């Protein structure tokens, strides 16, 4: 049985302090009575109340959620298809280009993706707004979904599909009744990733948004540029809480699922 050595425990402590202290301080100061963010003026939840009355903020939140939902859903479908192509399609003309186009957006600087998509929408005469932001988000997040799903597909035992075909299922049947349920956790994980990426994106949205489609990160960004404000702290705290909760619940559910599957296999 391994134990923590003194050195390892120290580096983990310092590392996690570095990763979590800023967020923790941000959360603590969201409950600060004082308008001056860095001076403690007593406990208060008034900034949360303030936030709830901020119509513009709420509108932006609503826009962001819709964009995130639609782009994540579209990305989940396209990304899963792309993963299937990468893992299953074998060699075909243009495969290199295809895998290049799937992997490149993962490391592409956001400013370039944002700018290039904007120029595309302009030359297509598409008005900038929710639609263009959704399309833009779908494009880069489908690549993340493809990576997540294909790593699951690689380890997928193809004899399961062959068994389904052997038992009389059509290829499409076999996909929907055997393959998809098995890779479903990866698709869900991909969807979640796409959803948070969209929720999070400032740069690409800034390029591609139009009047009436201001997303939350854009709103936060313009507020932050003016300096620290307790209201933004409160908003950040809510976002962090929601996302953390989602991730923890998803990972626990995944663990339980893996466990019950493991039991069945025994």
């Amino acid at each position, binding site marked *: 049985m391994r134990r923590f050595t003194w050195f390892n*425990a120290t580096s983990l402590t310092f*590392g996690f302090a570095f990763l979590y202290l800023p967020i923790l301080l*941000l959360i603590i100061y969201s409950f600060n009575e004082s308008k001056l963010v860095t001076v403690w003026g007593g406990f208060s939840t008034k900034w949360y109340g303030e936030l709830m009355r901020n119509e513009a903020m709420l509108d932006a939140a609503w826009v962001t959620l819709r964009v995130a939902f639609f782009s994540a859903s579209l990305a989940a479908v396209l990304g899963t298809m792309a993963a299937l192509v990468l893992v299953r399609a074998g060699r075909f003309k243009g495969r290199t280009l295809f895998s290049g186009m799937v992997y490149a*957006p993962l490391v592409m600087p*956001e400013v*370039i993706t944002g700018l*290039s998509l904007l*120029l595309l929408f302009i030359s297509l005469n598409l008005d900038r707004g929710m639609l263009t932001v959704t399309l833009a988000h779908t494009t880069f997040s489908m690549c993340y979904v493809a990576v997540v799903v294909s790593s699951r597909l690689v380890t997928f035992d193809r004899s399961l599909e062959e068994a389904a075909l052997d038992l009389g299922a059509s*290829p499409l049947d076999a996909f929907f009744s055997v393959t998809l349920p098995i890779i479903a956790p990866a698709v869900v994980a991909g969807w979640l990733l796409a959803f948070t990426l969209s929720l999070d994106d400032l740069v690409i949205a800034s390029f591609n948004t139009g009047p009436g489609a201001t997303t939350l990160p854009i709103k936060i960004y313009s507020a932050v540029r003016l300096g*620290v404000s307790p209201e933004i702290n409160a908003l950040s705290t809510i976002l962090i809480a929601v996302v953390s909760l989602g991730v923890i619940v998803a990972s626990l559910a995944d663990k339980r699922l893996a466990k019950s599957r493991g039991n069945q296999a025994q």
Partner: protein
Amino acid sequence: MSGKWRMLTLIGAPYLWLLLFFLAPFVIVLKIALSDTAISIPPYTPQFDLSGGWPAISDFFSNLDFENFKWLIDDSLYINSYISSLTIAFFSTLLALLVGFPFAYAMARAPDNWRPLLLMLVILPFWTSFLIRVYSWIGILKTEGLLNQLLMWLGIIDQPLIIMNTNTAVYIGIVYSYLPFMILPIYSTLEKMDESLLEAAIDLGCNRISAFWLVTVPLALPGIIAGCFLVFIPAVGEFVIPDLLGGTQTLMIGKTLWKEFFSNRDWPVASAVAIVLLLLLVVPILIFQRLLERQQEAEAR
């Protein structure tokens, strides 16, 4: 639906999507980079117009030139931005490695039942908003911020440190934001490492330190390289961190491009900046992709 058609649909849908929304935009960026700025909507000329027939098309091509690229060379702002971006990205990557390696090492050597929790704690910040995480440092680093308050209360300094709006703040921001990208690949190579290799090295006469340099580090090298690329590539084109934490003297190409586009509304120059940035990154991106492929091949064996 026959097998062939099914395959065609499967390949076709994501393929067309990426061609339209990923590849085509680059062609347009390239075209606009070769155009001239104009006071119009959209603010550049010439505009591509098929209705004019062949003469219009050839006229369109003859109006494209490399003037914007020449402009990039002439104005030191751009060159300096590129150089400064690469320098900042390079040193942040080095810093992230120095912080990330011991951390990943400690995670991989942690008791088995602790590791899933530690892994989740490293991944969790990645899910929370990037913008918020960068923002959280403003309250800490600014002149009347929490760090200065703490240091002055401890009596370590009596004048507040100026960190906010300097390159130091940018380094801190980049290391902080991209640390998980450094930790995770290193962790995964270290975690896979067979511990009997270290025992074998010690059995053959190594002490702990030489075993670390002769066995652990060479075996973690693929993870180290992957981690460095994962930090370096996005750091070069970073916009949010230099904009929020850096000062006016902080030059980074992502920020320059943003300014050129939103403040100066000079789309052709912004496009030219993007093209050069892309060219700068194409080599590291390709190397990175090759490494990934090689690693996957090695794993498949």
